[in-house]
């Protein structure tokens, strides 16, 4: 009788010990790997929009109604980066868009820019950037 009682006790202790150790090991394994570049996509998205604006790429894309200037510019991105860029008008929705691949989550940057001609129009450029999986 005592033997059976002791055996249940021991099994229970072992179960607790093993489940505790499994929990701890799992917690360690589950820690996210240190990401050195968590801020990188955000900065690249900002940089890309500023550079596109300053070099006239956004204006060229709008005037030619083509995504080719955007695509040409985006060749500069590191090869491990996915992007999606959109240009929208005030009341027109998305006018031009380009992307190389898709991700579940992106770092997003937006920039307003003005094109002056016979009339002045305000446009919104949006850049989404993420690491390729």
């Amino acid at each position, binding site marked *: 009788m005592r033997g059976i009682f002791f055996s249940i006790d021991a099994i229970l*202790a072992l179960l607790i*010990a093993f489940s505790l*150790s499994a929990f*701890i090991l799992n917690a360690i394994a589950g*820690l996210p790997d240190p990401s050195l570049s968590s801020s990188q996509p955000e900065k690249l998205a900002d*940089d*890309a929009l500023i550079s596109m604006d*300053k070099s006239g790429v956004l204006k060229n894309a709008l005037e030619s109604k083509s995504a080719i200037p955007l695509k040409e510019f985006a060749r*500069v991105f590191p090869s491990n980066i996915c992007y999606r860029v959109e240009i929208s008008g005030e009341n027109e929705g998305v006018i031009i868009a380009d992307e190389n691949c898709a991700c579940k989550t992106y770092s997003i940057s937006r920039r307003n820019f003005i094109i002056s001609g016979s009339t002045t129009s305000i446009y919104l450029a949006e850049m989404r950037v993420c690491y390729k999986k």
Partner: protein
Amino acid sequence: MRGQLFSFDFLLAISIILFIFALSMFVSENTASSINRREAEFDIQRAADSALSQLVETPGNPTNWHTPDFTDANVKSIGIAASRNELDPDKTSRLFFIANSNFGNYSLVKRILALDLPSSNFSIAISNASKYAIFETMVSPAGTASVHSFSRIAIFENEPVLVNLRMWVEK
């Protein structure tokens, strides 16, 4: 009978205690080394982010840092931007000329960019959309070093370029 029972009980208890002790030693060592590694890597990230921002977003201090002699006394910070994300060709070529001229100047550039973390080195490359390096520093990591790479996008002579900063810790 009682002695035998006690002995088995005792052995089991001791082995469980030893197991838990060994596990906690393993966990604490692992956690400590993981935290140290992260701290070191975050230091590298902070230094690289700040150096790249300084280079790509500012003209440097003084703004004509590229014209006088390149010394600690003359140059407070190095920036190669004419305006944000727009690189100045003169400052850019001067920076790479200085960094590649001798190891003393490379170390001075490293110090002014605040990249002088213990045992670490850096390299900077500016490449165009065809991935061709227009400018690059000559120092490169040994095969064993783990290299961290950080990039920013800018315009150089109206063409997009990738400014890539690599940092590594010498083993």
